[in-house]
């Protein structure tokens, strides 16, 4: 039973190794194996969710070394929620890649599994240095995936992405080093205990390390002003990779939520609420800049990348409220925004393939094959992303706005958040309406040259986009139970004493 906690980490790692050994095998078998593995990961994540739903925190001590001396993996409600989101998103991205993208370069499936290995590990680990290691694992896999298929633009965007993340890793190590040097531990639960009892002369060092760590996580989450790498990287990579990367920025958001509630939560004494002061203003700025970027971009994929940025802003703005309702609303919004952005990335790829040299540029072009289906799907994506009823975006934004109206918050908070979120939604609606009318309504009747004509998108590809949107519908239908669960996640996050007790054992 206790080995359940490490299973979501081991399954993708072992699948990746097996796929590497079987690289000479027929592609159909490797695809099958990768898909079965991802289905298994979904099942494992659901089992884990069931096991932690009542509030238990499962702790797995690697090598049976007790905390804080060994590394622990910790599964709580938040980790399980992130694992389910990742695995479900990965299934759609992988299925889309199996329609042909995986032929464009070597080792796609190996890298994809290692990416999932890094993601699962980052969500489960209860150790700061181990978190660094899993970040590196998921980053090096993401470098490979980002460059998959090659091409000028991809290489150029990839170089920026790699260099900025390496610089971020150096900062992460410095922060971890300061924590170890001052407090003598890297276990997150033990850090929480020691930070709360830090001596006054060490307080500036701990605050420095905490804010360095916040900077590194903000870089991964693409928070303003560390977001400039995101649009080029996401817009130029292949469609299934971009769809999977919708979760990558959320890893940074997860790390911010985890560390700011556990180590620098309200119980952290003199270092309390260290990150919280920065989070809300930066998140609102990210949201505003993301929406403006989307409105100003002239390619559909760049626009989608900016919408991913805006979704991170929305999610962290909700988390930055610091209340159970706010964090819960943000966590409800997280899977929705991943699924919607992934759907739009896949759809943008299908649109680009049908328009010859124009690709995904937002300009009138020839009529695409199956433009009816593409148009309807685009319309649904636009509704989901801009937050109109009846799809999941509306409920997400409603929950966030309701959480912002809490009278316990500072007076400026509700007004700022309401203004930015609502104006952002309006801007998203106008942007996507403009894009849709340029792509679909103003299409010229002329046919493409026979030389550049491509077959219309297959039913399978369209079905995957529709499936991602259907997940949004499902989230709407079961909005009640899901938002109960995310509020429970938030309550658990705001009571870090339970986490500490589960990891460190009962203390006198």
């Amino acid at each position, binding site marked *: 039973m206790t080995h359940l906690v490490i299973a979501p980490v081991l399954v993708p790692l072992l699948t990746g190794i097996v796929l590497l050994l079987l690289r000479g095998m027929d592609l159909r078998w490797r695809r099958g194996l990768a898909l079965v593995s991802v289905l298994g990961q979904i099942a494992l994540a659901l089992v884990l969710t069931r096991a932690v739903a009542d509030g238990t925190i499962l702790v797995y001590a690697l090598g049976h070394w007790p905390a804080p001396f060994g590394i622990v993996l910790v599964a709580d409600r938040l980790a399980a929620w992130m694992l389910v989101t990742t695995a479900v998103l990965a299934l759609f991205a992988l299925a889309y890649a199996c329609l042909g993208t995986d032929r464009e370069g070597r080792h796609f499936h190996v890298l994809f599994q290692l990416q999932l290995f890094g993601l699962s590990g980052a969500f489960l680990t209860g150790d700061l240095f181990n978190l660094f*290691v899993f970040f590196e694992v998921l980053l090096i896999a993401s470098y490979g995936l980002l460059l998959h298929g090659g091409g000028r633009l991809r290489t150029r965007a990839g*170089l920026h992405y790699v260099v900025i993340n390496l610089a971020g890793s150096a900062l992460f190590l410095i922060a971890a080093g300061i924590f170890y040097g001052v407090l003598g531990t890297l276990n997150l639960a033990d850090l929480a205990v020691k930070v709360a009892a830090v001596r006054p002369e060490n307080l500036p060092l701990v605050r420095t390390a905490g804010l360095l760590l916040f900077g590194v996580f903000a870089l991964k989450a693409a928070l303003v002003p560390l977001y400039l790498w995101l649009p080029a990287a996401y817009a130029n990579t292949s469609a299934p990779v971009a769809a999977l990367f919708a979760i990558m920025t959320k890893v940074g958001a997860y790390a911010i939520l985890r560390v700011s509630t556990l180590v620098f939560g309200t119980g952290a004494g003199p270092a309390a609420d260290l990150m919280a002061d920065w989070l809300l203003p930066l998140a609102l700025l990210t949201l505003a800049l993301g929406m403006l970027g989307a409105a100003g971009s002239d390619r559909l994929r760049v626009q989608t990348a900016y919408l991913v940025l805006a979704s991170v802003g929305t999610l962290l703005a909700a988390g930055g409220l610091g209340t159970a309702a706010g964090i819960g609303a943000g966590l409800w919004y997280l899977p929705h925004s991943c699924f919607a952005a992934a759907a739009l990335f896949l759809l943008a790829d299908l649109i680009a393939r049908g328009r010859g040299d124009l690709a995904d540029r937002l300009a009138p072009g020839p009529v695409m094959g199956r433009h009816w289906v593409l148009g309807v799907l685009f319309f649904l994506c636009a509704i989901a992303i801009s937050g109109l009823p009846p799809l999941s975006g509306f409920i997400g934004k409603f929950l966030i706005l309701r959480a912002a109206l809490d009278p316990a918050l500072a007076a400026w908070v509700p007004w700022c958040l309401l203004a930015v979120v609502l104006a952002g939604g309006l801007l998203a609606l106008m942007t996507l309406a403009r894009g849709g009318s340029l792509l679909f309504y103003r299409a010229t009747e002329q046919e493409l040259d026979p030389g550049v004509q491509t077959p219309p998108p297959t039913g399978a590809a369209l079905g995957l986009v529709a499936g991602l949107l259907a997940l949004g519908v499902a989230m709407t239908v079961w909005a009640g139970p899901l938002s109960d669960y995310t509020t429970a996640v938030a309550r658990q996050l705001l009571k870090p004493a339970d986490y500490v007790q589960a990891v460190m054992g009962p203390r006198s």
Partner: protein
Amino acid sequence: MEALLSLIIGLLTACGIYLLLRARTFPVVLGLSLLSYAVNLFLFAMGRLTIGRAPIITPGAAGYTDPLPQALVLTAIVIGFAMTAFVIMLALKARAELGNDHVDGTHEPEKII
């Protein structure tokens, strides 16, 4: 010894950051390497500076040095080594595909996205 080590770490970091901000890929790669050396030394120093002490329990040892930062540095070195190899290959690929070694792929100001 502390002052000397701090100076070395500071100098390495400063040089690393300067090179990281250069416009050609090769200085950037060098800058990342220098930065990772600085970080490794820093991590190592976080276990306090001791000379000639045993890291693991030995009968009759006068005192111990902290073995954990050494393990952390080893991990960081391995990861940094792999990343440097990767970024060198990527820089070469960019040089071949884009025709020059500017980090933006061109010396002309141009829209990237």
